[in-house]
């Protein structure tokens, strides 16, 4: 997980016009922690920010909105302690982007620059996109989902989808129905015979059951 975040930071620094990048995430209790930073200097500034409980990253996490600090030297009133410390470390501007999933903020991606002025709009968009995907990846890790199990489920779901569509095609051709009517007929038959739709479709698709052998559509057998 930390590997991914380090990678995310490195890519932000390489691909975007930023000096250093860091990720802060909320611990289960809700307190922010510095998870990864692209430089030791930034890590020190971020740790200070958490201790002082003021600064763009903290505000971004609190509000769930991007915070753009285009000129840190002019921010001695908004965040006096943080701004001084960041400027001392050589940074002149900072952008903090929320890591959000379905309205829930889990942390912030922090991008610091030695130049004045915030990131250009396209860079901000790209950075937010990276933050969004990293958020998904983090949530996935937190729920401790096994990639192999998920992949098996994905393959099985895709295969079911293939089989059902193929069976619809076969029934459609064999019975002169359109594919939607063919699907109705498959479902009708599965219901009448208490079969799983996927099992019935597999039998049709692989030729074990003739598509014309299905119960005709019409009044249900049930009284």
């Amino acid at each position, binding site marked *: 997980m930390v590997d*991914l975040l380090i*990678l*995310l930071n490195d*890519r932000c620094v*390489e*691909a975007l016009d930023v000096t250093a990048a860091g990720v802060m995430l909320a611990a289960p209790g809700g307190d922010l922690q510095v998870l990864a930073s692209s430089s030791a200097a930034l890590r020190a500034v971020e740790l200070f920010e958490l201790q002082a409980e003021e600064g763009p990253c903290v505000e971004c996490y609190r509000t769930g909105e991007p915070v753009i600090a285009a000129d840190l030297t002019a921010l001695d009133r908004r965040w006096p302690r943080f701004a001084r410390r960041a400027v001392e470390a050589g940074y002149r501007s900072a952008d903090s982007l929320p890591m959000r999933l379905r309205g829930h903020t889990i942390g912030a991606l922090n991008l610091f620059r030695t130049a004045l002025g915030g990131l250009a709009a*396209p860079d901000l*968009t*790209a950075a937010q*996109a*990276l933050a*969004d*995907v*990293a958020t*998904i*990846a983090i*949530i*996935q890790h937190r*729920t401790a*989902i096994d*990639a*192999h199990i*998920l*992949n098996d*489920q*994905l*393959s*099985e*779901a*895709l*295969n*079911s*989808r*293939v089989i059902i*569509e*193929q*069976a*619809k*095609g*076969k*029934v*459609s*051709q*064999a019975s002169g129905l359109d*594919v939607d009517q063919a699907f109705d007929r498959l479902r009708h038959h599965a219901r009448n015979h208490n079969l799983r739709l996927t099992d019935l479709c597999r039998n049709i*698709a*692989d*030729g074990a059951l003739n*598509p014309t052998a299905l119960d005709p559509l019409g009044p249900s057998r049930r009284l």
Partner: protein
Amino acid sequence: MLGRTDGTPGLARLCEVAVDVAAVTGAGIMLAAGDQPQGGLSSSDGVADVIEELQFTLGEGPCIDAHGQGSAVSEPDLAAPAVTRWPAFAPAAIEAGVRAIFGFPVRTGTVRLGALNLYRDRPGPLSGDQHADALVVADLAALAILALQATVAPGALAAELDASFPAVVQQAAGMVSVQLNVTVGDALVRLRAHAFAAGRLLSAVAEDVVARRLAFDDPPSDVP
């Protein structure tokens, strides 16, 4: 005809990021199950859609290779390749406006999920940094796909992944298998062969079959 695929907002944004960081014209993500491509999940533009469709139709191309061999595939000049790898795909892709093309496996560990495709409308290789960035985007795509699948119950297919599933092709395969009395696998091969010979996309041929504008049991009169 083909529009930009954006059934998966996270993946669509990833395609945009890939375009940005690798300085390419467009990007697309292909989903696969086993060795079978299951269609394009997301793309940055119409040409990227066509690239996915061509590979799905022809069964060859950079995504299929990248997915199959589990490593990146690079063709900086599709019109003058060092080795001819994709005899059917290359001319069709050039016609669609592609001059350089790159494929990156979308996987996590040993789990292989598909491939990321990048293309340029001019020839030229990716720089080392661009290549490295593309690999990261491909890794993120793998995590995003699994995260999507993690939101649904076992047996179900996440709606975002289902949206791009080429249902019409599988329906057509079922119909042609009855028309020719062959297995659906063989029917799919016949559909692909027809699409290739007619210079059309598999999905377009499949739509004709499902709409009964084209049948494979007709006496051979060629033009349907």
